[in-house]
């Protein structure tokens, strides 16, 4: 079935249609993606270079690992120093994210027990295996990752697996897009992330369109999905419509995944939260509710971390995340800053725009 979404003939037809629509529109339009996987599709298949000159694609804050606050990573490391027997798990890209005080990888090389997991389920299994040890999952991610966290915690609570805890740095995506709009990032349409939408549904994004008049298309991740979504956005602009449409109907329902929403709502409160290089965003973070607080490692250890600089001097990750520049506009890109020697978080994560651009080289045109 997936192959059908790589149909070249159809893709060419959609492209011709995009050119027709863009010409009809006759002005420059800017669409933003806010998902690392969309950015990967767009850059890997060279979609920017295929599009008409007046259709620009910006990359937004689609990298949860990139926006995880420095202070939280450092706080987790301080907790480990206080309690060296803790087994910490996190995702591979989180493991390498640099801070002024080092990374989880550095902690590992100093002898602390940090392990890379593919899923919070792996982390939970470690807690079951080592009932005498405290296992803490340092847990970043948007709604798509918050749902698994909620599911796993739910089971830990029901089965009273008390040696399993999290450090929640989960974030919500629509408030970040709203933040960019309020800050003045100029957008003509949003390529809305399909997998976040499987959880929160079309309804989770709707308010952005009604409040800010911004057309949205919830998009799948094959190149054809993205092209069709761009075409749908252009079509709306021509007709003067501002609506939210769902291109990814094969996976996204209007109401989203109710089971996942129930678990998230049962366990988490939504609070104002910091995003690295972006600042505080209103109602954009998930914290565990008071009654489940014991599953949050911060409730057992008090650490006070002074505010630290978000980025190394010269790193323009903040502008990259806001969609204000593309990575090659950063003078350090590809010269000083590479995936082997990353200067900023956007070069470390597989979902970071800088790493994606580096990986696919010249195709960003």
């Amino acid at each position, binding site marked *: 079935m997936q192959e059908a979404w790589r149909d070249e003939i159809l893709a060419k037809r959609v492209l011709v*249609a995009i050119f027709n629509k863009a010409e009809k529109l006759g002005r420059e339009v800017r669409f933003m993606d806010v998902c690392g*996987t969309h950015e990967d599709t767009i850059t890997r298949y060279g979609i920017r270079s295929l599009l008409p000159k007046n259709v620009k694609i910006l990359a937004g804050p689609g990298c949860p690992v990139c926006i995880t606050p420095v202070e939280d990573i450092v706080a987790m490391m301080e907790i480990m120093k206080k309690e060296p027997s803790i087994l910490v798990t996190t995702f591979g890209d989180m493991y390498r994210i640099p801070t002024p005080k080092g990374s989880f990888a550095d902690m590992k090389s100093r002898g602390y027990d940090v392990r890379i997991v593919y899923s919070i389920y792996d982390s939970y299994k470690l807690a079951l295996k080592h009932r005498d040890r405290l296992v803490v999952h340092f847990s970043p991610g948007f709604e798509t990752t918050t749902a698994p966290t909620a599911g796993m915690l739910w089971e830990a609570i029901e089965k009273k697996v008390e040696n399993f805890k999290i450090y929640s740095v989960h974030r919500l995506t629509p408030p970040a897009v709203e933040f960019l709009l309020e800050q003045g990032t100029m957008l003509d349409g949003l390529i809305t992330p399909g*997998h976040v939408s499987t959880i929160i549904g079309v309804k989770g994004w709707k308010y952005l369109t009604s409040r800010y008049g911004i057309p949205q298309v919830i998009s799948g991740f094959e190149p054809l999905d993205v092209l069709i979504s761009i075409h749908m956005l252009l079509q709306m602009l021509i007709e003067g419509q501002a609506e939210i449409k769902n291109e990814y109907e094969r996976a996204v329902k209007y109401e989203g995944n109710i089971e996942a929403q129930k678990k998230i709502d049962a366990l988490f409160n939504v609070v104002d939260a910091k995003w690295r290089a972006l600042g505080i965003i209103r109602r954009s973070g998930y914290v565990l509710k008071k009654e489940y607080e014991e599953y949050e490692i911060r409730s057992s250890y008090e650490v006070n971390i002074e505010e630290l600089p978000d980025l190394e001097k010269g790193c323009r990750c903040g502008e990259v995340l806001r969609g204000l520049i593309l990575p090659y506009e950063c003078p350090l890109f590809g010269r000083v800053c590479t995936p082997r020697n990353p200067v900023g978080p956007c070069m470390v994560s597989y979902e970071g725009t800088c790493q994606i651009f580096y990986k696919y080289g010249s195709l960003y045109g």
Partner: protein
Amino acid sequence: MCLAIPGKVVELRGNVAVVDYGGIRREARVDFIPDVKVGDYVIVHTGFAIEKMDEEAAKRSIEAWNEIFTLEDFPEE
């Protein structure tokens, strides 16, 4: 970390499924897909199935796109 990929459920044990991704098999939690069956396609993200892939809907939309883009921009065909 956020890559979510579709695979086919080949085995079910309570909340855990074995999912086949074109030959590679891995466990995935299905806590959020209460009506999942062997043979269903699911989208898996960090080890959790987040939604079913509706094959019928997929087929319908490909057909619809084919029709739209043939009629609209290639009227001669």
